[in-house]
């Protein structure tokens, strides 16, 4: 019964979404407060119904109800409970339902916490949210219904991809979706603003927290994804410029640009149309990401042909959302008048530069992601082009270099008209630190690479530059220490957010440089008792034994690692075979240290009792995720800034029936 209750709730949610899309919008256009008031309870009802549906599907997964097609295809009775639950969103249908659930959560949040929003803006934004919901619910119910039944029921499920049976990946999609869907709020506000024909400081102030939240979630999602790739795929890599990764990276780049341009709208009442455009782009890329990843189009355009119903629906939805919003933008965008003027060298100018680099970067990634699809479609699958790391290293990395160079300077410039010379003078410390860091790296590194030096240069420049900006703000060494401390304590949280996020990026850059340039790799066949030296550590292999896990059998190897005769750690890498799908996975053994990770993988047994082993030293790799966490912390701190807790205005009384008279 429960599964059918969920199905009914989802169908009901569709029609509530129709109401949410139509009634408040009509009310806002006609000045009918009663109709506008439907927006909030509709968003609430929408959330309740989708939550019921999601709960029912989860129940089906938890109880392994194989009379539900989706459960039979994606779950198995012997799976650990955690992965039964994460299996709910580990497939196309369930992930779409999660998407709509998160959309409803955001809509509900606007309904509950949006009291300080002007009713017109709120109603219109919620109506747009409702419209997005309608599109997704139609898509789910008619092409990807998670509640479709399988009768007679399957004996047992077909299991979940064992690669996905991992906590890192279990919680990676929800965060990504929180990010993707979060941009739908910025999008809804942007469309509402276009309909109203006005974007002002107040608008920017209401949009920014939603963007900030979405950006923080997306950062966590991307971080979790690359972390999973690092320890589960067993190649010591963390980012492969894979289309699936790019799909989450593009909205992040566009969202980062949006985050910065909305500051300009709020503070300086300019760059309005551009900000609205970015909001549309960020959400469009999120949609593209959601669909391209889940529909399998990225692996081949022919996925459309194998399931034309789904593919055509996706195409139509994308055309309506992206085409429709861009058309609306072309029509109403020019009416958005900016008042603030600024010089090229100014805070605004620096933020504009950031936007420029971010959007060009986004375009590059988009090109790299879609180009293979185009050639595939054009040549009918005859020529498979793959765009990989060399392309991005050659195009994307050079784009980021001037951006990071400018990142340390931007916050030092004042609004309207900045003094570049003065800013650079104050950054002498950062220059010096960068020079020292490069010199030290030059001395330490063996087999020198220019790329490594560049990475260290800019990481040090950005990190110290960010700290210099903070020191400037609190007048460190210029005012008495007590005064500086007092200023530090009373710094607005948004300022802390900026400092942390920029500093976090510097740490990330250092991590990427270290793991990308100085990775030490050693692949060999080892017999028990053999030793190999990798980056100054001696790995001694002690053989590998069979080992039985709850739903897999594994070959577990043992290494003892020592350095200069001192024992460091024992590593136990595994090679697992999950019984249900007979699919092998590697479980790398990782020993993280401050300066890098010791990383060991055991492979197949070779004739003569030896095993293929892969040993890595990944310098600074942990810094990447630490930096990501610092960035997220910055986002959260900035989100809690008191600016975003603006109260609702005192209301003035308007007699009932005023609209009727007017």
């Amino acid at each position, binding site marked *: 019964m429960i599964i059918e209750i969920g199905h009914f709730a989802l169908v009901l949610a569709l029609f509530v979404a129709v109401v949410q899309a139509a009634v408040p919008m009509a009310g806002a256009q006609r000045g009918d407060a009663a109709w506008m008031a439907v927006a909030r309870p509709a968003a609430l*009802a929408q959330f309740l119904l989708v939550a019921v549906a999601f709960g029912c599907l989860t129940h089906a997964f938890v109880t392994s109800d194989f009379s539900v097609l989706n459960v039979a295809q994606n779950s198995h009775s012997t799976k650990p409970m955690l992965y039964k639950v994460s299996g709910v969103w580990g497939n196309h249908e369930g992930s779409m339902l999660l998407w709509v659930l998160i959309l409803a959560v955001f809509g509900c949040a606007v309904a509950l916490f949006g009291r300080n929003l002007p009713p017109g803006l709120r109603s219109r934004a919620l109506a747009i949210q409702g419209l997005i919901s309608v599109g997704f619910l139609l898509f789910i119910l008619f092409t990807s219904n998670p509640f479709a039944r399988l009768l007679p029921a399957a004996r047992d499920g077909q299991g979940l991809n064992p690669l996905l049976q991992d906590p890192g990946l279990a919680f990676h999609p929800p965060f990504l979706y929180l990010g993707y869907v979060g941009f739908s709020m910025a999008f809804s506000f942007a469309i509402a603003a276009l309909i109203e024909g006005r974007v002002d400081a107040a608008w920017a102030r209401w949009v920014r927290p939603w963007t900030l939240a979405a950006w923080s979630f997306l950062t966590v999602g991307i971080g979790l994804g690359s972390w999973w790739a690092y320890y589960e795929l067993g190649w010591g890599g963390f980012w492969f410029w894979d289309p699936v990764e790019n799909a989450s990276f593009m909205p992040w780049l566009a969202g980062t640009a949006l985050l910065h341009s909305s500051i300009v709208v709020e503070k300086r009442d300019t760059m309005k149309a551009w900000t609205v455009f970015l909001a549309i782009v960020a959400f469009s890329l999120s949609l593209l990401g959601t669909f391209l990843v889940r529909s399998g189009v990225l692996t081949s355009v022919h996925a459309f042909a194998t399931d034309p119903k789904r593919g055509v629906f996706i195409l139509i939805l994308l055309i309506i959302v992206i085409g429709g919003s861009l058309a609306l933008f072309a029509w109403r965008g020019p009416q958005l008048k900016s008042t603030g003027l600024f010089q090229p060298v100014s805070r605004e100018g620096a933020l504009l530069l950031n936007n420029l680099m971010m959007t060009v970067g986004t375009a590059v990634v988009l090109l790299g992601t879609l180009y293979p699809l185009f050639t595939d479609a054009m040549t009918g699958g005859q020529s498979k082009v793959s765009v990989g790391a060399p392309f991005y290293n050659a195009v994307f990395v050079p784009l980021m270099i001037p951006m990071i160079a400018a990142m340390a300077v931007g916050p030092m410039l004042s609004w309207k008209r900045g003094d570049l010379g003065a800013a650079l003078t104050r950054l002498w410390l950062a220059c010096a630190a960068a020079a020292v860091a490069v010199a030290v790296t030059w001395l330490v590194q063996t087999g020198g690479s220019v790329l490594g030096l560049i990475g260290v240069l800019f990481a040090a420049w950005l990190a110290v530059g960010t700290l210099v900006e903070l020191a400037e703000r609190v007048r460190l060494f210029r005012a008495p220490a007590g005064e500086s401390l007092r200023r530090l304590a009373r710094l607005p949280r948004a300022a802390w957010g900026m400092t942390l996020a920029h500093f976090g990026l510097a740490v990330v850059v250092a991590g990427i440089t270290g793991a990308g340039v100085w990775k030490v790799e050693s692949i060999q066949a080892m017999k028990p008792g053999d030793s190999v030296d990798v980056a100054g550590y001696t790995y001694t292999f002690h053989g590998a034994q069979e080992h039985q896990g709850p739903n897999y059998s594994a070959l577990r190897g043992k290494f003892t690692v020592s350095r200069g005769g001192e024992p460091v750690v024992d590593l136990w890498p595994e090679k697992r075979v999950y019984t249900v799908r007979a699919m092998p996975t590697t479980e790398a053994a990782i020993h993280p240290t401050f300066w890098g990770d010791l990383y060991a993988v055991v492979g197949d047994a070779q004739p003569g009792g030896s095993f293929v082993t892969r040993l890595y030293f990944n310098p600074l790799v942990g810094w990447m995720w630490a930096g990501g966490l610092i960035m997220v912390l910055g986002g959260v701190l900035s989100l809690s800034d008191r600016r975003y807790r603006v109260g609702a205005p005192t209301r003035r009384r308007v007699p*009932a029936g005023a609209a009727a008279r007017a």
Partner: protein
Amino acid sequence: MTVLWIAAAVLVLVTAALLGLPLLRARGGEAASRADYDLTVYKDQLAEIDRDLERGLLSAEQAEAARIEVQRRMLAAAPEDGAPPAAVPAGGRRWATAAVLCVAVPAAALGLYGYLGAPQQPDQPFAARPAPVHAEGRKTEMADLVAKLAARMEQNPDSVEGWLLLGRSYTTLGRFDDAAAAYGRVLDLRPGEVEVRADRAEALVMGADGRIPAQAREDFRAVLAADRANVRARFYLAMARAREGDDTGALQDLVDLIAISPRNAPWLPTVGQELMRLAAAAKVDPTALRPTAEALALAKDLAASRPAPPPRPQGEGSAPAAAAPGPSQADVDAASEMSAEDRTAMIRSMVQRLADRLEANPDDREGWLRLANAYRVLGETEKAKEAQARADALR
């Protein structure tokens, strides 16, 4: 069904209440104009400039410039907003809207659900369904166990029980030649085991794809000499005769076999089928066939000695305890003709029989091991563990 409709009704009511009530309850006088909202933000921005000035983040002149800019925006916001704020219309239209929403939304949802859903289908959670028998898993698991057992027998070649178990296991796995060899080891140790001899002969027949090799014939003759009523020996010897072209003799043997069998013996359908087939081939009227006097006399003797339930063709005490509760050939024959469900039921009843026996006679380690194995095959891990523990306790 009912639960579904009650739940659906609750969802509909909650939704209707959420959508309808704000329309009905809407009152005038609560509206603030857009300019009011903007001014609130601008006021907050002014306060922020003051805070920044106080903190020293802005210099006095920067703060003044920023203040003038915000104030200019405040002035711009106020007069521009000539349009009146949204107001609440008269009651009639609100009631109409609420009524339309509260009827149309549930009606549409019910209609679409009726098209997409399967309201009459109950949930089928895995735990509530009969445990499935995994043919594949069962086979590989068993092959592992058998390989281990075979290795153990190399160390300990004097265990009659062990060889017997190995022979039965090979038979189950379809490795009939290996099974025959294992039974042969039992016969080397105890040549007088009539049923084991029959087992070996049967394995030889199975391994020869239904032909009756000379060794098998010899075995069956020996068995029959020791036990005149042995069903398997009589059946296979009849088949051997038929193969040699002696249809009449074969038919007579089968009719005799039927005569000495109890009325409800499980092997009767098989024997009957063979009888019909041979009779048709030889163009003989099967109803005209009569058992020999010898068979009738034997039948009388057997009926007298037979206890109330019909005896299992497995001779009592002929094999040690380990063999006794296993499936007899007749059981297996009967099983091969059953539907999947019946077979599962039969296997379960046999396992239950074994379990009951072991409760009465708990010192039989081999029995516990076999029970554990049986439970494992049936997928009842908990019970398997329990049985394994009982077996281990006897070590």
